C-alpha cells in the first residue's frame, strides 16, 4: 500500500543521504521524495512516498526514526490530509492549439507562466492523479518537457508535526 511519511530532520550536510541510503540499503521503495528547509532554517521537512506491506512500512517508520538526524516523523496515510504536487509543463502550441491548451489550463485551475510564438509553459498543482489527468487531457498536443516536484503533504485540523 502507498504511504506518505513526513519528517522533520536536522538541516545538516549529509542528512538527505542518510535517508536515501537507508532506503537503498534496506531495499525499500521510494516513489517520490521532496525536501526543503522549514520556517526554522535549522530544520528540513521531507515528504517521502513509499509502498510496501504493513510490516515493511512499520520497519521504514522505525528505521527512519532511528536515524540520529530525524527529529520527528509522521505517517500521515491514516490521517485526513492534503496532498499537493507541482508540475511545470511545456507544450507546442500553434494556431488552434493555443485556445485548446488555454481552455484546458483553466479547467484544471493551472496557469500559463511563459508564452512564445510556438509554445506555452504552464504550472499546475494538485494531487498526483489530477496532474496525470492533465497530461492525459493534453494527449493531442506535443509535450516538450514535464517537471514534477514530488509530493508534499500536510494533515488537516489542529494536529501538527
Amino acid at each position: 500500500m502507498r504511504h506518505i511519511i513526513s519528517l522533520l530532520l536536522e538541516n545538516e550536510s549529509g542528512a538527505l543521504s542518510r535517508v536515501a541510503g537507508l532506503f537503498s540499503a534496506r531495499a525499500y521503495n521510494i516513489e517520490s521524495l521532496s525536501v526543503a528547509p522549514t520556517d526554522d532554517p535549522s530544520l528540513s521537512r521531507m515528504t517521502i512516498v513509499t509502498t510496501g506491506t504493513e510490516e515493511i512500512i512499520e520497519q521504514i517508520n522505525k528505521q527512519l526514526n532511528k536515524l540520529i538526524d530525524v527529529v520527528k516523523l509522521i505517517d500521515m496515510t491514516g490521517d485526513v490530509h492534503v496532498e499537493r504536487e507541482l508540475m511545470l509543463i511545456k507544450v507546442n502550441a500553434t494556431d488552434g492549439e493555443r485556445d485548446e491548451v488555454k481552455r484546458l489550463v483553466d479547467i484544471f485551475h493551472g496557469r500559463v507562466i511563459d508564452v512564445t510564438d510556438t509554445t506555452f509553459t504552464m504550472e499546475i498543482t494538485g494531487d498526483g492523479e489530477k496532474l496525470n489527468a492533465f497530461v492525459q487531457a493534453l494527449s493531442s498536443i506535443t509535450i516538450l518537457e514535464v517537471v514534477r516536484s514530488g509530493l508534499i503533504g500536510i494533515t488537516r485540523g489542529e494536529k501538527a508535526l
Partner: protein
Amino acid sequence: MELIGADIVIQSLKAEGVEFVFGYPGGAVLHIYDAFDKQEDVKHILVRHEQGATHAADGYARATGKPGVVLVTSGPGATNAVTGIATAHMDSIPMVVFTGQVPRHLIGNDAFQEVDSVGITRPVVKHNFLVEDVKDIATILKKAFYVATTGRPGPVVVDIPKDITAARCEFNYPAEIKMRSYNPTVKGHIGQIKRAVDLILSAERPMIYTGGGVILGEASPQLTRFAQRLGYPITNTLMGLGAYPANDKQFLGMLGMHGTYEANMAMHQCDVLIAIGARFDDRVTGNLEKFCPDAKIIHIDVDPASISKNVKVDIPIVGQVAQVLDNFNEVLDSKRKTPNTAALEKWWAQIDEWRSQDCLKYDHNSGLVKPQFVIEQLHDITNGDAFVTSDVGQHQMWTAQYYGFNKPRRWINSGGLGTMGFGMPAAMGVQLAYPDETVVCITGEASIQMCIQELSTCKQYGLPIKIICLNNQYMGMVRQWQEFFYEKRYAMSYVDALPDFVALAQSYGHTGIQIDKPADVRAALEDALSRKEELVFLNCFTDKTENVYPMIPAGAGLNEMILV
C-alpha cells in the same frame, strides 16, 4: 583556554576518561599525533594495520563496557578501518573512530589520500560527523561519545580535516549534551510489563531466549534472578553467552544453527517465548515460516526497530533490559501467582529427554586432536573464567559450544558480521584493559593470517595473550559446507603453503609451541597459560575433517537438525 584543534581532540578524550586510543599515524592526523606527545593521560597504542586498531578498540569495549577509541588517517587509513567499524556496528559495540581528512579547501578535489569517509562509513555506523569548524570539535566529540554509548550502542565516526586540527579556538568541554533528535532513554511500558508477566506465569512450556543486549545492558544479575525464580529453561545466542551461567542446570546451551538439540527443540515447541535483548537473527531462527509455531512471543529490546523486524511479536516492550527485568522481578514479587509447576515438571522431563541425546558428544578415540577436546581442556584449566576471543569459523562455534561461559563480557567474538581476523587484535584490547587476567584467542590457521601483523604490536606493548590455533589446514567451515552441500568439492578451502607458525611467532619475539597428539594437549595448554609474561602461540594440528555438530542447514526449521 585557547588551544589548537589537535589539542582540543586530546583534551576532550581526557575529559571523557579515555585510557587508550588505538591508531596509526598519517599525514592528515599529524597535528593530533603531535598533541599526543605533549601529554601522558591518554595513551596511544600503535597497531600495524588500521583494521587491527578497530578490532582492538572493539575488544576493549566488549570486555569493559567502555567505548573503544580509534584514530586513523584519511584515505586508506579510513578505508582500512571500515571492516572493524562494520564489525562493531553489527554487534552494537560502542566505539568512537576519528578519521583524518584532507584540509577543507581540498575536499572534493580528489586530493592525495582523500576519500569521502563520512559517505563510505555511513551505512556501517550509528552516526557520523564531519567537523567543519574548530569551534565545533568539543561539542561534536561530546555528541559522538553520547550517541555511541547510549540507547542501542554503536560506532560513531568523526571525520576531521587537517587544517581544523591546526586552527585555534577557546576550549570548553561541555558537561552535558542534549540533542533534540536523539532521546535514547526509554523506560519499558509498565502496562505491557504486567501483561507480559501474566503471560509468563500462564506458560506451560516457557522458554527464555537472550542475546547480546543483556550483556551490553549489564543486565546479567537481573536476568539470572528472573530465570531462577521462575525455574524456566534458558538459552543464549552466540552474542549472549555468559549472560547466564553456563554451568547452571536451567541453561540449555546456545541456540541456532550450531546450537544444542535441547535448546532448539525447546524453542520449537515452547508455548511462551521470552526474548530479551536478542534480534531474531537468521542464524538463530532458521526458516522463519517454521519458527516457534506454537509460541506467544514477548520481546524486550532497547531498539524499537528490532521489534517485529523478522518475527511478529505479541507483547513488545521497548526499554533498557536491566530496567525492564527489574520491573518484571518487582511485578513477580507483588503477584501471589506462581508458575504452573505441574506443567513445568512435564516440560523439564521433555527437555531432559532431548538432553539425553548428548548432542555435543564426539569421538575420543580417534588418535587425532579433536578441537572440541582442546576447548574443554582450556575450560577446565581456566575454570571457565578466562577472557576468550575468537575469529570466525568452526573454532568459533566449538568455543561457543564447549567453553561454557559463566560470566558476561568474557566471550568476545564477531557474531553479526563474522569478521575473520578479529580475534587477535580484540585480545590485545582486552589484555590492555585487564593486564593481569588470562586472555586467550582461539583461532584457526586461516583467520589468524588476516591480522597476523599485530603480533608485532603485542611485542611492542608486552601483551601476553595466548593464541590457540586450531590448525586443521582447511578453512574449516567452508570445507564443512562443501562437504555437506557441494558434494565434497573442496574449492579453494585448503590453505596451502602455511607458514611455520612457531617460527613465525618466534620471529616476532614470542614463544611458539606446536602439538599434534591428544596426549600433549593438556600439558601444552598448561605450559602456555603458565607463561604469564609471554605471548604464546600454540599451533595445534587437529583432525582435518572434524565438523561442527549439531547443525541446522540454511532454510530449515529449528527442529530439523543434523546430529552427529
